């Protein structure tokens, strides 16, 4: 295809992505370096028979004009990155000096909001991803051995947790694990503790969110692995059998190596997707115990006072995090492409 034709074909999609993805990324980087103007303060001196007093008032009009003329605010460089709500450079230094050992350091760091959100996001990403891979793989193996007529129905029901919006999926589960809901009451019965509430403890909230994450993501790995199982090399399996391999050995030495490219693909996709975990926290009303980076941004943006600079700074930090996770994906795509063009 000629360059010119390509250009016209590609122009609409390119301009959409430039305007609404590339430009906003550029914009949040800029925004994160600015902070809203302080209110303009006028100092007036009021003199009465008892002496003179200085009064400070906010000049509403001047403040509004200033904020309107320079909506970005004033330039502060990396100040917002260093403040207590983000990387908290000074606080971290203090904690480092004051803490006697690493556990104490870790515990105190956990009190800083950004690091707390970071801790949850990373825990969620690196527990949900392996668990959904394993769970999805087992479902795929099980469904594959089913009778043909049952397969379609099983796949239909298996798709449901993945297809509904994360917010709705988490709400549905949330109502069930409510202390007055069916699972909540069952747990109270099992543990013989009528006051047991998953919502009350940080640890249980995290477990609940992780279970939700696996429930939501397992169908994806199941479907991909199931498709992979359809292309299994039967002759390799046969020869493994003749060599006396047990079922477990067949799975371990033939099936898993065969599915390896798919496992890598699902794992890499999931790392990126789980890193943006956000809706479940809203759905489970879990913000008191678990905050993720995306929730952190959402919280800054919502409400009466939209803290754009703060949100922009968290966004930039989140994007840096995603880029680190993205790196292996890029390397893999690069390798694939070179292999293909070498052929």
């Amino acid at each position: 295809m000629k360059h010119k034709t390509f250009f016209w074909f590609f122009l609409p999609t390119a301009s959409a992505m430039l305007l609404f993805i590339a430009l906003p990324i550029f914009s949040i980087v800029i925004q994160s370096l600015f902070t809203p103007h302080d209110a303009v303060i006028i100092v007036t001196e009021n003199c009465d028979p008892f002496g003179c007093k200085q009064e400070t008032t906010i000049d509403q009009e001047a403040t509004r004009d200033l904020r309107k003329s320079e909506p970005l605010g004033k330039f502060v460089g990396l100040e917002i990155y260093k403040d207590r709500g983000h990387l908290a450079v000074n606080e971290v230094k203090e904690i480092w000096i004051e803490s006697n050992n690493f556990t104490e350091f870790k515990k105190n760091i956990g009190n800083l909001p950004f690091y707390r959100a970071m801790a949850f996001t990373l825990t969620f990403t690196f527990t949900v991803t392996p668990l959904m891979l394993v769970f999805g793989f087992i479902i795929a193996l099980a469904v594959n051995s089913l009778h043909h007529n049952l397969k379609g129905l099983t796949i239909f029901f298996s798709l449901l947790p993945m297809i509904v919006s994360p917010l709705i999926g988490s709400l549905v589960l949330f109502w069930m694990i409510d202390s007055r809901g069916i699972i909540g009451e069952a747990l109270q019965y099992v543990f013989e503790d009528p006051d047991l509430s998953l919502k009350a403890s940080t640890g249980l909230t995290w477990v609940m969110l992780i279970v939700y994450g696996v429930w939501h993501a397992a169908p994806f790995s199941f479907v991909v692995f199931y498709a992979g199982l359809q292309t299994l090399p039967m002759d390799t399996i046969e020869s493994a059998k003749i060599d006396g391999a047990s079922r477990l050995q067949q799975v371990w030495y033939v099936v898993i190596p065969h599915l390896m490219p798919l496992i890598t693909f699902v794992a890499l996709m999931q790392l990126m997707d789980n890193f943006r975990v956000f809706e479940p926290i809203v759905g489970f009303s879990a913000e008191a115990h678990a905050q993720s980076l995306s929730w952190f941004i959402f919280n800054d943006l919502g409400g009466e006072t939209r803290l754009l600079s703060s949100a922009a700074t968290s966004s930039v930090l989140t994007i840096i995090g995603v880029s680190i996770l993205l790196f292996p994906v890029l390397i893999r795509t690069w390798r694939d492409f070179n292999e293909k063009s070498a052929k």
Partner: protein
Amino acid sequence: MINHSLKLPISLKVSISIFIVFWLIIAAFPFIWTLWGSFKIEADFFSKADWMNALFAPRTIAEKGGAFTGDGYYGAWVQENFWQAVINTTLVCFFVVGTSLTIGTLGGYALSRSSYKYTFWLLITALIFRAMPPITLVAGYLLPFYEWNLWGHLATTVIVLVAINQPFTLWMLHSFFQKIPKELDESAKVDGCTQFQAFRHVIIPVMWPGVITTGLFSFLLAYNDFAITSMLLSQNNQTMVPKIASFMGTTQTEGNVMFAVAAVVSTTAPLFIMVMFFQRQIVSGLTAGAVKG
């Protein structure tokens, strides 16, 4: 061992069946339970006394005179204007799917037919954009949207969702178009067609399976989105998912939780029907990216 279910030892067969039943309960029961409970009143669905109340609904019978009540639905759809959110969602989904498929097919087709190195870099850029959590972009939208009075409108949200959708759409359609033999449009060009005519008369008639699959995923993205729609739409223009979230925020009073339950069921029902009809396309779409790589 595969497709040889008859050869499986009986113990393995049993444990597989138990596991499948277990998984099906985990996957489907929450939805069935919520559907069932949406026709009860709150005192039954969230019963402090006895979980069996949710099944036999004594309080619902006492208060409403029957074991089932549509009060939750009435409250959500009529009192809280959920119908408005349904219309908004329909509009958003329709225009998002239409627009992103139109510009996505053009772009994806071009990427699959050009052999220059830059197509690779464009795909990589799209992959990077795909990885960006949408919520991180919102801070960048708000300032200009306020300045130019674009905030709160459905049209703005549609365009933003289309753009966020593009990287994924491009990847998917690119891989579908690569499966259509290049000889098809090459021979049309030899016969004197321009590239666009070749696309219009030769490719469009054969591209529908791929386009429908991609369209389903665009639809799901628009339908399920919460981050963008909750941030960019004004109260009146809210779509279903942020509307449900606002039910939760404003109320914990008697009956209002049931509005949210009813709204959740109303939102999930269309997805069920969609999966029923398009199961094969959804499965092929999920695996398209994977099997290729």
